[in-house]
């Protein structure tokens, strides 16, 4: 047991990769079971690791015993342990969904590839969140992206627009990774190191302003593409709307979060919040573009008729909140961003899985198909309603806590305009969330077709997610405190 926990950082990445290779060779049902069991094991591993290393972090896991900076390391600290648990939880929900209502979405010869790709994506995203090596981060980003292209393209079997969405995603994703790797090249030129902690230390001793500026410009652009910052978000709405629901549940919940986390680590952990280039990029790029994303995503979500397209544009707006939060550059804002990432991740996963369950009963993807959902399937509709309420930022949900902390941080920083934009961005969802909630809760709808029932493999996990949203929303103090100390640790790492 002890040995397992010692090597947990390696295991929670390697285990899904190995299981993916096995699952791809198995028949469909076996593959889905392998994915579900592995994803749950990974979740148990990350939670067990968090509990057993409480107070002992940051921990450096050196692969093959090669000490940093020469060897590749995973660095688990207070800042990334929360997102690591979040990603593995979302992965478990998505993998269980392939056993439940998502099962019919990937059929035939591709039935066993879907769980395999899902496992690859989970492992790679966990790698992105935990690695302490700049080039290793690129490799994990690309493993995650290549599996994501495959997952989105699976949606093309049902709707051929899915193929084009996957192609566009591939073009933007590959460009984003390429920009990132150019930035790593400049970092390597200026420091001769690839280890984040080592780069940070060397930049303090021997600054190279021009190379640093070039490096950060490329790193920021690349990771902003991956995290879908407006106006680089063009690939996102169609990819999320047309992919199979288990793929969207994982991508919408965890993949943007992982890219944004990497960006936060590079920005505040390596360069530091006082670096002139950081201040310039955050204030002149991230802040206005984040604000624009909040408004643009919110408006497009109002006009979307398709439920999944509406949720995707809502994800664009939420990425805007995160970028605007990052651009504040204060410790309180970083903590708020962390809370918002958790709220968005749990909320989006719940919504996409619940939407898929609702669609099985009505075989339509429009918001109108949610009519009478509560009468038809109360459990799924309850999860759907709580997810929608959290997207709206209704009190007693984690979505409210995240938005509240962000607005608070903006006011504390003196950016009243940012606070105003965030408040407007919280009012826009009233229209589309209100419309959806009315359909779900109050409007009468057709009864469920005979013999079709929502699967507990889909519903039970999202009920847990919805419960987590409410519990952390009501008793938010422990999570907010943890996010605060996590942000403090990251800021201290990059302090000059």
């Amino acid at each position, binding site marked *: 047991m002890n040995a397992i926990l010692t090597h947990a950082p390696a295991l929670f990445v390697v285990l899904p990769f190995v299981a993916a290779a096995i699952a791809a060779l198995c028949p469909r049902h076996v593959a889905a079971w392998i994915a579900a069991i592995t994803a749950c094991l990974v979740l148990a591993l990350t939670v067990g690791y968090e509990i057993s290393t409480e107070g002992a972090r940051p921990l450096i896991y050196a692969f093959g015993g090669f000490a940093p900076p020469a060897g590749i390391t995973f660095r688990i600290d207070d800042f990334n342990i929360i997102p690591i648990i979040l990603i593995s939880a979302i992965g478990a929900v998505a993998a269980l969904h392939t056993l439940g209502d998502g099962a019919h979405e990937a059929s035939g010869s591709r039935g066993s590839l879907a769980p395999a790709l899902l496992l690859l994506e989970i492992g790679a995203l966990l790698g992105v969140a935990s690695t302490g090596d700049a080039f290793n981060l690129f490799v994990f980003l690309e493993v995650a992206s290549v599996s994501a*292209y495959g997952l989105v*393209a699976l949606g093309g079997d049902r709707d051929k627009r899915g*193929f*084009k969405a996957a*192609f566009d995603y591939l073009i933007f994703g*590959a460009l984003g990774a390429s920009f990132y790797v150019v930035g790593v*090249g400049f970092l390597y*030129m200026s420091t001769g190191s690839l280890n984040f902690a080592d780069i940070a230390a060397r930049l303090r001793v021997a600054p190279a302003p021009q190379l640093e500026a070039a490096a950060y410009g490329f790193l920021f652009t690349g990771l902003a593409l991956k995290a879908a910052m407006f106006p680089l978000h063009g690939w996102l709405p169609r990819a999320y709307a047309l992919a199979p629901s288990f793929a969207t549940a994982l991508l919408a919940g965890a993949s943007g979060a992982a890219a944004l986390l990497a960006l936060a680590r590079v920005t505040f952990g390596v360069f530091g919040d006082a670096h002139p280039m950081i201040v310039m990029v955050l204030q002149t790029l991230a802040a206005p573009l984040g604000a624009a994303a909040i408004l643009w995503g919110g408006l497009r979500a109002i006009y979307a*008729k398709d439920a999944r397209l509406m949720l995707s544009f809502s994800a664009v707006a939420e990425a805007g909140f995160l970028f605007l939060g990052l651009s504040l550059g204060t410790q309180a804002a970083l903590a708020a961003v962390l809370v918002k990432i958790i709220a968005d991740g749990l909320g989006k996963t719940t919504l996409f899985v619940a939407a898929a369950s609702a669609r099985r009963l009505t075989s339509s993807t429009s918001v109108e198909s949610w009519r009478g959902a509560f009468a038809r399937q109360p459990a799924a509709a309850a999860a759907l309603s709580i997810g929608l309420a959290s997207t709206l930022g209704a009190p007693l949900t984690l979505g409210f806590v995240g938005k509240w902390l962000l607005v608070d941080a903006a006011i504390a920083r003196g950016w009243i305009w940012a606070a105003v934009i965030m408040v407007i961005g919280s009012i826009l969802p009233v229209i589309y969330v209100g419309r959806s909630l009315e359909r779900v809760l109050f409007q009468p709808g057709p009864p469920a077709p005979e013999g079709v029932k929502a699967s507990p493999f889909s519903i039970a996990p999202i009920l847990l997610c919805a419960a987590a949203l409410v519990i952390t929303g009501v008793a938010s103090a422990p999570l907010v405190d943890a996010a605060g100390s996590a942000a403090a640790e990251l800021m201290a790492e990059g302090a000059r």
Partner: protein
Amino acid sequence: MNVDLADLAARINNIAVVGLMMAGLFITFASGHLVKRLIGLSIFQTAIFVFFITMGKVTGGTAPILLPDERTPIYSNPLPSVLILTAIVVSVATLAVGLAIVVRIKEAYGSAETDDVAAADIALDADAQT
């Protein structure tokens, strides 16, 4: 503005890299055929490989091999080349997935021209709205 020609000549690799990158980026977005867009992407990525490999070059340096008489020769930095070995694998994988998707697009839409696919998509979107 003074342009130091000797300085420019010393950075000829960077100029070539930027030229290739821009050409690749232009092809990626301006080309009318999906396969050509992937080729543009490949050119863009190849430019980055050149950037990394030339970064590690030391003038007069050889491969980093320990000679039998334990002399240490002047050698180029092997690390960027090793990194690029990985990046090439990644880029080949991306290209393969991209080409596979183009094959499926061609099967589903009957064309791999950007405009045809976009027009078909717009028609499908209009259908989905009603």
